[in-house]
């Protein structure tokens, strides 16, 4: 259908259109940009409510919720984002998102890499425990995040018993073929750091004898490690005797 020329439009209409457009842009531009402050994070709804709100597509809702959640207390350029968040609420949200999408890794990545690295020890510990609990629900898929939690416990919190508990959990529960040796061996290295050389030596020895290590390079590496540990154990016991 052909249209009439713009000249057919009354000038008052054109003026109102221009004024309305300018007014709308000015009004919205003058408003402060929307921000999600830490205190705005509401309590997580129940899983039943979220399932109802997902209209039968919980995965899509989980993905959108995760993006929304990570915007809370994130200020561009801020050195310590997420510091003021209520971690109880945050955990509840992350747990709900994982319930909606159990195969999704994003909530645990956020827990270990974003929320777990906030320089507040209590908050770090609560996030690491959250990762540990979630790991136990699906160890073969979620072990990378507990491995990261182990590193955080060891290097940031300097809590070797905690790191050992996580490393032991990986070694015991993450039994799939795709779990790499370094992850399963974290327990040994932490025991070494704790000066538990005898225990570490026994674990490596048992590991080699179990026949579960098939790769020749890995086998060589473990045997080398075993020799080093044996040498250190001998040196340690001889120094104790001289004392």
């Amino acid at each position, binding site marked *: *259908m*052909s*249209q*009439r*020329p*713009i000249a*057919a*439009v*009354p000038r008052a*209409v*054109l003026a*109102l*259109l221009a*004024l*309305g*457009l300018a*007014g*709308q*842009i000015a*009004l*919205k*531009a003058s*408003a402060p*940009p*929307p*921000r*999600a402050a830490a205190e705005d994070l509401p309590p997580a709804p129940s899983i039943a409510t979220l399932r109802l709100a997902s209209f039968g597509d919980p995965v899509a809702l989980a993905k959108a919720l995760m*993006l*929304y959640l*990570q*915007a809370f207390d*994130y200020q*561009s350029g801020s050195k310590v984002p997420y510091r003021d968040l209520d971690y109880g609420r945050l955990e509840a949200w992350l747990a709900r998102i994982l319930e909606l999408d159990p195969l999704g890794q994003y909530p645990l990545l956020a827990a270990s890499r*974003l929320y777990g690295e906030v320089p507040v020890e209590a908050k770090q510990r609560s996030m690491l425990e959250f990762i540990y609990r979630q790991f136990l629900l699906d160890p073969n898929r979620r072990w990378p995040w507990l491995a990261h939690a182990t590193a955080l416990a060891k290097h940031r919190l300097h809590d070797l018993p905690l790191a050992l508990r996580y490393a032991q959990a990986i070694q015991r529960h993450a039994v799939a073929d795709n779990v790499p040796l370094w992850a399963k061996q974290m327990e040994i290295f932490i025991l070494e750091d704790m000066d538990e050389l005898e225990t570490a030596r026994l674990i490596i020895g048992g590991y080699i004898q179990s026949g579960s290590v098939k790769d020749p390079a890995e086998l060589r590496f473990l045997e080398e490690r075993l020799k080093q540990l044996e040498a250190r154990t001998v040196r340690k016991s001889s120094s104790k005797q001289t004392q």
Partner: protein
Amino acid sequence: MPIVVSLARATLLEAVRNRLLWLAVMVVVIAFGLAQFLNQVAITESREIQTALLAAPLRVAAVFIVAVFVITSMVRELSDKVTELLLSLPAPRSAYFFGKFSGYALVATVLALLSALPLVPFANSQGLVLWTVSLICELLLVAAMSLFCVLSFAQVVPAFAAVAGFYLLSRSMAAMQIIASAPLQDPTLTDRVVNAVVDLIALLLPALDGMTQTTWLLGEAPGASVLGSVVGQTALYLALICSAALFDLHRKNF
């Protein structure tokens, strides 16, 4: 001016004869019954649950009814050539537009008042007044947008899709801006372009996300400044949509 009043009356009559008000009453009764049922189930905060589960569905239902009524009524009128007959009368096109819009605005106001009625026993009075005025504003914007879209597309499906998209986008735009403003990595050129587009779209949409909040009914009602900003945004955006619709109507060849 008489033609504006006549058209408004005819539109209101059409709504009554289409049993639109009966439909609205039925929706209100069903929502009220559902809220009563949930009140029996709830262990605590039963008043809050009743209020929230009444207010939110009633608002969405009112928006849906207004949009569908405006679009189907206008499409039927266009198909029956009634629009051409009316435009052949010795009156400017703007009189036709404002006559139709006034009728739809009256229907929207009646719907908003009906939606507020079942909330009277549960909500605080000041908050309810603010909620009702805000719902009227929201429905006026939806009616104007529906009129604009149906005059442009002249078909039910494209017009309704455009109105639904406009409404959902306006309601969720603040959340989208929040997500866009929290990049965890250094933004690339593509991120910057996408963020700029999001901000640009946000400038052109009304702040519907700040309107008709359920929290106003539950806790302490917000002050007059909120009402002022809601009414101000509505007036400004109505001027924008109505002028855009008039621009389109004046250029249309029937």
